[in-house]
């Protein structure tokens, strides 16, 4: 343990396992990301994966399937019920999230959207604590929707959290082929591994859904090839 604690954080991404420890220079400011804990002037891995770092931060990059709510993340939730003035929302985590019925832009006690079980919302996590249920809202801190809303129509697919992160990258290589093959479509990617797809025709929606599911296991080139085949087969 003492030998491993003397190691410094590698510059290049490298595989680590639980218990691996890396020393930090004494006067360095650092952001410790998921999969790591800071203890005794070093960071210790709590999850296996690939350790990545830059000048200001260090984190473990790994693929998960179960979502753990984190503050300020945007997730896709499905309404499963209502308790008084709050909706119970399934966000794919260990606990059901709660969302106030007036947590929408411009909503008041008299004028608020009436949601039913099965409705889909794109919401922000405003409270995430291990001791209480997570809480959602469809507004940002200034009370604006800013893309958070009830999602109507479309189709939801479930993917891993790693794939949802890849889809949310700026100019992601996974989403670029979609712009070449489809004239009009819309994606909404939640950090909880749910992707909402909508397009002008149902065939295109199905094709995009199949493509995104295959991106989980295939490289981009192979996934694009299957996308072409799917589009051809659907006509």
């Amino acid at each position, binding site marked *: 343990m003492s030998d491993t604690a003397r190691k410094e954080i590698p510059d290049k991404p490298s595989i680590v396992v639980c218990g691996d420890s890396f020393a930090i220079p004494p006067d360095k400011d650092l952001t410790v990301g998921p999969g790591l804990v800071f203890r005794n002037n070093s960071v210790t891995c709590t999850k296996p994966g690939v350790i990545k770092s830059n000048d200001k931060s260090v984190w473990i990059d790994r693929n998960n399937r179960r979502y753990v709510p984190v503050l300020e993340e945007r997730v896709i939730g499905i309404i499963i019920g209502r308790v008084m003035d709050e909706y119970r929302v399934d966000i794919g985590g260990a606990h059901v999230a709660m969302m106030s019925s007036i947590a929408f832009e411009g909503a008041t006690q008299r004028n608020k959207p009436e949601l039913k079980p099965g409705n889909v919302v794109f919401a922000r996590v405003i409270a995430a604590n291990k001791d209480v249920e997570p809480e959602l809202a469809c507004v940002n801190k*200034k009370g604006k929707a800013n893309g958070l809303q009830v999602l109507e129509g479309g189709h939801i697919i479930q993917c891993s959290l790693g794939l949802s992160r890849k889809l949310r*990258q700026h100019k992601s290589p996974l989403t670029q082929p979609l712009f070449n093959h489809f004239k009009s479509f*819309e994606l909404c990617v939640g950090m909880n591994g749910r992707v909402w797809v909508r397009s002008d025709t149902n065939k295109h929606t199905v094709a995009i859904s199949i493509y995104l599911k295959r991106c989980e296991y295939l490289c981009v080139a192979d996934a694009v090839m299957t996308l072409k085949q799917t589009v051809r087969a659907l006509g």
Partner: protein
Amino acid sequence: MTGRAGHNPDKRFLSKGILQMKFMSRSSHAPEEVSTASGNRDTQWIVDSGAVSQRNIIIDESYMKLEDLCEIGRITSKQFNPYIEKILAEKNRLRDSDEPSDDQEDVQEMDGVSASEMSSRYNSLVSNKKRAPGLGDDSSDEEETNQDATERRKFLKPS
């Protein structure tokens, strides 16, 4: 005589019987309770993580900032959803110009008041309370108060 002893804060003047009564024992314990409460008030917010505060270690469980992911999480093509297209265009503009977004602005506002700004503001409030409003600016008020203090200190020998 007992009345005088009642006004005196020193409890030695009260009889033992009175001091043992319930309401008297309560009052004798009251100052101790206040002191312990104030002690708790100071210590309850201190987290036992001195090393973390010294080194400025930030714990962030989200990948959003670490991997520089898209905050909006929406993608649309060729004006299929103009509302989202507009939001994305605005976001890209802010990103290119390195301006803070709405959420980041909020965070800056929350911890935006520095200690020096707070103290200067508080000083102006105190001076306004002492004087009636609309009698000049803060600097002139301070000078006048200083003059008053020197005048007060002056000792006049009795004739």
